[in-house]
């Protein structure tokens, strides 16, 4: 099964973009190698969405910190995908599990979201990096939530009386990256709050994305600022220039 050799004439142009360019003026169907490469990328994205997380291995990686497993109302993947509202609310059983629990300070929520690969690959590592910068995070268990959307962290945070939540959740997989993690910070979590109250650090992955270290540093900066201002979201974003200055200082270390 050998493809005809691709012309090298356009290699310089191919390097200008990560797009699936062909530089082939023929009207022929795409080569089988390109077809199968596309199918492999799509399959990886589909598996990232549909395969479940191995939570036990994440719990092991979180040690010595403890974890508490929770689930949304969605129950299973098909419902999760068609009913985002169910993914924003805890199941009755999970609500019961939180009954009477109180924590001091901020909490971390790890969730599958749309990519089990993301939370599997980077969830525990980002938590550990974050805890090194924000020791208060060690005071509470890490909440591990299945079939979850971002806003479920508001319900968890409010239920246990947390001052803030760090929601680390799998982002929708693309063809080139299937394990990108997103982090959402929310001060004073409360169910029903607007997305404009959140600060987001996205694109956390190892394939030319934001590193765990840089993501943790950004989130720690947001946490410090939120404590000073007593809020989070767009008010903090207005000072992103300052954030950039800090980032360039760091890269100069």
């Amino acid at each position, binding site marked *: 099964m050998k493809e005809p050799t691709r012309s090298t*004439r*356009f290699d*310089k*142009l*191919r390097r*200008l*973009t*990560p*797009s*699936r*360019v*062909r*530089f*082939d*003026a*023929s*009207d*022929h*169907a*795409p080569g089988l190698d*390109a077809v199968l490469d*596309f199918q492999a*990328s*799509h399959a990886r*994205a*589909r598996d990232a*969405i549909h395969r479940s997380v191995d939570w036990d291995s994440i719990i092991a990686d979180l040690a010595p910190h403890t974890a508490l497993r929770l689930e949304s109302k969605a129950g299973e993947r098909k419902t999760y*995908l*068609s*009913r*985002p*509202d169910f993914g924003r609310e805890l199941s009755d059983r999970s609500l019961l599990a939180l009954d009477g629990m109180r924590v001091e300070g901020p909490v971390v929520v790890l969730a599958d979201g*749309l990519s089990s690969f993301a939370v599997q690959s980077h969830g525990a590592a980002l938590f550990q990096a974050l805890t090194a910068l924000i020791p208060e995070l060690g005071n509470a268990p890490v909440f591990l939530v299945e079939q979850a959307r971002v806003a479920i962290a508001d319900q968890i945070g409010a239920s246990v009386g947390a001052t803030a939540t760090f929601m680390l959740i799998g982002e*929708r*997989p*693309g*063809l*080139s990256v299937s394990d990108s993690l997103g982090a959402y910070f929310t001060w004073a979590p409360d169910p029903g709050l607007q997305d404009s109250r959140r600060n987001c650090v996205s694109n956390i992955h190892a394939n030319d994305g934001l590193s765990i270290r840089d993501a943790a540093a950004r989130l720690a900066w947001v946490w410090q600022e939120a404590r000073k201002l007593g809020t989070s979201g767009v008010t903090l974003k207005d000072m992103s220039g300052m954030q950039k200055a800090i980032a360039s200082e760091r890269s100069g270390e």
Partner: protein
Amino acid sequence: MATYKATVGKETFGFPTLAALLAAATPERSGDHLAGIAALSEQQRVAARMALADLSLSVFLNEAVVAYAECEVTRLILDTHDQTAFAAQPARNVGDLRNWLLDPAVSGGDILAASPGLTPEMVAAVSKLMRNQDLIRVAHKIEVVTAFRSTIGRRGTMATRLQPNHPADDLAGIAAVILDGLMRGAGDAVIGINPASDSIANCIRLVEMLDDLREKLALPTQSCVLTHVTSTIDMIAAGAPVDLVFQSIAGTEKANEGFGLRLADLAEAQEAALSLGRGTAGQDVMYFETGQGSALSANAHSGVDQQTLEARAQGVARAFRPLLVNTVVGFIGPEYLFDAKQIIRAGLEDHFTGKVLGLPMGVDVCYTNHAEADQDDMDSLSVLLAVAGVNFVITVPGSDDIMLGYQSLAFEDIAFLRETTGLRPAPEFEAWLANQGPSVGAQPLLAAFERIGVSA
């Protein structure tokens, strides 16, 4: 208290409002379940269609699905409704309208003459009584021709938007994709970029690059940077070479507020773009995108089903003489259109309602990774739309939009569609392709790209 009712088998089903009746009559889709307005059973759905078939069209002029006082989209629809055209068309109820549209003696011209008398809600309603075949058959009759530098929509042609998006808006990367697309004959509807950064300075940088390239290549097409309408007004004020004004639009005032949009902004932008007088084949300067579910995702659906709201968004578009309108059908996600069956149906509906409303309809034949769909489904939808006479489709390298993270048609899909259906590019573009000869050898094109600093 049921205002509308029908009996299926032994059971009589009632529907309290026109909006509830329309929602229940709609083919199943996840977004209407999410909104809590979908039919509760298959028999209820058919009962709704039976009630709808007997419903007088004049009801649509007396019962607004979104209140007139609360919504400028409703006001636009009802204030511009043409009573004379409405009285002149023969259909008295929704079922009659379906039969009239399908009548072989009724031409596309007859339908376009009746169109100003039909509200978007009437057209949405009739689509709910039609099979996919009917949607294709009626749309196929209707020829909507628009022009700027190329002429789009003529019978026997199908154009393409070349979408050279880049995650960092890198100019050389964008130019490389444009070259790849031109070599495969894409770009006659528009070369349109979704910018990664919406800053005015960045959008001007992009549109200047596109214009420079177009001039050097003597390309008979138009360019567009798809940013917010108010930003485009600023770009024009700053002297940028803007061909087309883009805007995403939705079917309720509240959903448009979510886009930061007032209808007055569209009129202002259209006037600004027209003042530049840049078109050569025509002066249609507006480009709109719509998509089922956009109102619901902004929590602004007012209890109206997503397909009816989509037709209302098209009602907004028809007030501004657009060059291009497309639905982004599979882009919005599985919570609105769950799988390929729903995406294909919605794509055919949006194309049908747009054409009946007199719009130059295109479709972004697309899906996201979390929808139950794949390349085979897009092959099916693209062929169905080519047969239905779609004005244009969207194309990217290898079906993979690396900036927006979804899959649309590939440049090479156009060669396939042209080969199997006999459809041709826009006439000005076809002449340019024949002259440039990119399909037999890219030398002249490459020379032009070298002149702008992109060399192979």
